[in-house]
């Protein structure tokens, strides 16, 4: 008995009290954000990147979001991966309506987020035109790291119960900094003449990112 009592008090080291408090909402949010059952609505080329994302290399199971459910009634998270044409609009909306509350929608790639360059008669300019969308991930297609960023944004949103949509920011936009762009000119007789210039720019970039491994910050 004495040993057991000692062990119990050890787990509460540093605390005067024998219990912890939280709100039910927070507890539920914490539970929900690590058990996202996904319904992949894959329509276009972004699907290839979605396959890469769900591979062991990027290990979606870290976020508890690795289990696909091919019935909307069993899933919490609708991945809209790819271009949504006007013809698919009613289908997507119906699938969303079949999902149980609480439910979230993640727009994977520029087409699902805004229609992308399909600015024409046949494409819906973003899933938010027909269903509520929680997170937008730009990219054509987005890198898996960007998608993981988006997933973490969604987890934050679930935990905090916020209503605002999240948008994944680009990590590095070369167009923001003209010196970061390498321009191929006809004056360069041998393309290899450009290599020192490219290396210099890449070095500057690495320095700007604080010499991190692969720049995953």
């Amino acid at each position, binding site marked *: 008995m004495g040993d057991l009592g000692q062990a119990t008090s050890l787990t509460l080291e540093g605390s005067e009290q024998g219990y912890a408090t939280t709100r039910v909402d927070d507890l539920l949010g914490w539970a929900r954000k690590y058990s996202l059952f996904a319904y992949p609505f894959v329509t276009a080329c972004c699907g290839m990147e979605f396959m890469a994302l769900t591979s062991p290399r990027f290990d979606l199971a870290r976020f508890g979001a690795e289990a696909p459910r091919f019935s909307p009634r069993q899933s919490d998270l609708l991945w809209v991966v790819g271009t949504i044409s*006007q013809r698919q609009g009613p289908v997507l909306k119906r699938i969303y309506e079949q999902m149980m509350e609480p439910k979230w929608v993640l727009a994977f790639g520029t087409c699902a987020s805004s229609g992308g360059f399909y600015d024409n008669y046949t494409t819906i300019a973003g899933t938010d035109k027909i269903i509520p969308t929680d997170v937008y991930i*730009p990219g054509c297609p987005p890198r898996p790291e960007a998608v993981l960023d988006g997933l973490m944004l969604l987890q934050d949103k679930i935990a905090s119960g916020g209503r605002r949509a999240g948008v994944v920011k680009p990590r590095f936009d070369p167009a923001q900094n003209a010196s970061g762009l390498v321009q191929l000119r006809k004056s360069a007789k041998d393309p290899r003449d450009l290599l020192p210039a490219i290396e210099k720019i890449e070095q500057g970039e690495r320095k700007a990112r604080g010499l991190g491994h692969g720049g995953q910050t």
Partner: protein
Amino acid sequence: MSKFVLDKLQERFGAAILETHSDFGDDTAVVAPKAWKAVCQFLRKDHALDFDLPVDLCGVDYPNRVDAGRMEVVMHLYSISKRHRIRLKARVGDAEMEGAEIDSVTSIWPGMDWLEREVFDMSGVRFRGHPDLRRILMYPEFEGHPLQRTYPADRTQPLIEYRTEEEAGVPLGKLEPFGPDEGMSFGRHGPPRVENGRSEND
């Protein structure tokens, strides 16, 4: 390449072959719409020609061409046995697409079925004698033909109503980093300006 096909066509149909050219190895015959089916029949049945593969069919709109038919129906044919190609064109319809009709050639090449449906769907050319002429890419509720130049570039016809911002409670415009002109930046604003032989990007 296959100039003799053009010669044979002209010999056989005379005035129904409106013009021909064979530049860079591509042989083209512009056919009077009335002779369309007869020309196709001849190309398919003649043993020296034997065009057995219908490669493609499409419509090309020339809205400024008021005299000779606005919509051009373009057909590409290939002969697997003789290894030669030809391109046929027919100009149909006036400025309002009145009389944009042409004979169906599905009885000659069954594979033309869906291609003719596509041209009907996209360009609005009606094919006389087609067994099942309905839309193939767009939905039945769609009005107009999107590849006609007179179809407004920004007109969409949603099947379900878009959400409004009041209903959604959040802005539905394109959020950062998506620009308002996401995509088609050159299509909506014209080609890049070129001054003194140098473009803006130089």
